[in-house]
């Protein structure tokens, strides 16, 4: 296949990828969008086979490896529980990053195959693009691995900080830039390997200081990085499909990071430079005086909700941990039978990744037109009888509106306290990830339900 013809096909793939994202503007068109994406991928792969034109023994191996990788991927996709989506996505990001690194290594070892020159005399522009792609790929890989370990609970979610951290990162960043320069001058393989190793290190150092609650930003950011890595390789290979995709994914991840930061009223740099949890531990311990709390049980909750005319459910990460979404749906069904109007309110940063709660509710067969975003529903709390907060905490804290001293001041929160009564399902009075006490626990109209989210919801279903 001629280079021009294949370039046209790559352009078509690129357009199909754009349509895949476009489809996600509404759930009705989203499934079609996903097929566009699959079609674009199929075209890219077939065109590459045809343009390389090597159907020797190597081709058979490629097919075998494709099949092995594909089966592993399909197996994971069907087996993974929806609650584990954040770590799955982090894991997948690491694979894209590592694949980019491998392609860059291969191009460096054998530039003839990619028309980039010969070993020891690779074209300058290609070398720069290649080292950019490899370096970002390596950062994506090791960063995503750390994010995966934190989300999976293998590594503690609390931020790991040490003195001089930012200076070390700065020095390593500058080292990467100067190594790229020396690589271009000397074409030395040793410098290329050093560049990769330092990039892997930067990925680790970049993610360890970021705490559990900031994971939505981290995942979005790594999403963005994996796109830029792909684009870097796309420039090296002079491949339009890769360049378009890289740009799409890169900007998509960047926008999601922005939305997540805005949902917490924090700047991007503030998140990157270290978590909340690390700085605010002290302020919670001194605030230990006992305040009166109204303690309720499942029967009280069932009674309150059964006699309400409208209930708003506020899910958070705790619902995901307890896998309470199905029990919650049963409870809502029972309430609806009693003529109660029920809707769901989702805070932008509820959960561990953008849209996490929406997916879990969809899994439990909650129709998506009963689920609302913060801006859509926040005014409704004033007219609602019961707010059922399940596994959320910081995103309901009224202190964000009233106390300029609070670390979460200015963060958009759900106005849960405006409803006639608040049911708060929580295991204990411990503060949330921001490490601050929630004023809501001690309000007159708040009834605390101390239990595991799933168990409590099931008990409420029983007494309904």
């Amino acid at each position: 296949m001629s280079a021009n013809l294949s370039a046209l096909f790559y352009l078509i793939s690129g357009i199909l990828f754009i349509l895949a994202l476009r489809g996600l503007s509404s759930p009705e068109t989203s499934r079609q969008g996903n097929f566009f994406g699959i079609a674009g991928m199929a075209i890219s792969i077939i065109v590459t086979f045809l343009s390389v034109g090597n159907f020797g023994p190597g081709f058979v191996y490629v097919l075998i490896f494709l099949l092995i990788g594909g089966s592993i991927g399909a197996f994971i996709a069907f087996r993974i529980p929806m609650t584990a989506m954040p770590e799955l996505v982090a894991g997948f990001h690491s694979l894209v990053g590592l694949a980019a690194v491998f392609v860059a290594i291969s191009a460096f070892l054998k530039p003839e195959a990619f028309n980039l020159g010969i070993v020891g005399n690779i074209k300058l522009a290609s070398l720069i693009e290649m080292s950019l792609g490899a370096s970002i790929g390596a950062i994506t890989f090791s960063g995503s691995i750390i994010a995966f370990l934190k989300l999976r609970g293998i590594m503690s979610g609390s931020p790991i900080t040490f003195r001089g951290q930012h200076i070390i990162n700065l020095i390593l960043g500058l080292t990467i830039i100067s190594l790229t320069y020396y690589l271009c001058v000397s074409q030395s393989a040793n410098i290329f390997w050093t560049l990769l190793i330092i990039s892997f290190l930067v990925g680790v150092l970049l993610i360890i200081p970021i705490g559990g609650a900031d994971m939505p930003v981290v995942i979005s950011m790594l999403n963005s990085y994996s796109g830029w890595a792909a684009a870097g390789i796309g420039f090296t290979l002079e491949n339009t499909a890769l360049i378009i995709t890289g740009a799409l994914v890169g900007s998509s991840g960047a926008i999601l990071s922005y939305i997540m930061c805005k949902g917490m009223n924090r700047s991007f740099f503030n998140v990157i430079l270290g978590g909340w949890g690390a700085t605010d531990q002290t302020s919670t311990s001194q605030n230990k005086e006992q305040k009166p709390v109204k303690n309720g049980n499942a029967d009280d909750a069932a009674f309150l909700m059964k006699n309400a005319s409208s209930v708003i459910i506020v899910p958070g990460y705790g619902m995901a941990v307890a896998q309470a979404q199905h029990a919650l749906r049963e409870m809502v069904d029972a309430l609806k039978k009693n003529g109660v109007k029920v809707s769901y309110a989702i805070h932008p940063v509820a959960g561990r990744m953008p849209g996490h709660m929406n997916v879990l509710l969809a899994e439990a067969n909650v129709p998506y037109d009963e689920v609302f975003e913060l801006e859509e529903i926040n005014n409704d709390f004033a007219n609602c009888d019961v707010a059922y907060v399940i596994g959320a905490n910081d995103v309901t804290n009224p202190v964000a509106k009233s106390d300029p001293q609070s670390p979460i001041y200015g963060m958009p929160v759900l106005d849960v306290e405006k409803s006639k009564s608040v049911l708060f399902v929580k295991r204990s009075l411990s503060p949330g990830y921001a490490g601050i006490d929630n004023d809501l626990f001690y309000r007159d109209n708040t009834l605390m339900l101390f239990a595991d989210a799933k168990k409590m919801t099931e008990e409420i279903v029983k007494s309904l």
Partner: protein
Amino acid sequence: MEIDPFIFRLSIFILSIFIGYYVVWSVTPSLHTPLMSVTNAISSVIIVGAIIAALAGVSEDIFETSNIFGFLAIILAAVNIFGGFLVTQRMLQMYKKKKK
């Protein structure tokens, strides 16, 4: 004077960033998780590079170091392509409207 092809690629790249910007803002927030998994799947189009690395300019020995890196990258990208698209499909199947 002729324009360097790099400039064309740079133009495509920058225009695509703009397209990405507008397309992603129109994605409904409730589909942000599928957005991440599908962007993850399409970024595995890096498999194009992996296939070239594995097959192009092959001499007698198909298992030279550079080819091996190509094969490894193919496995990684394939996990992502199949895993990414299928898990997205699985999620999107769950988004249903209220039964009337």
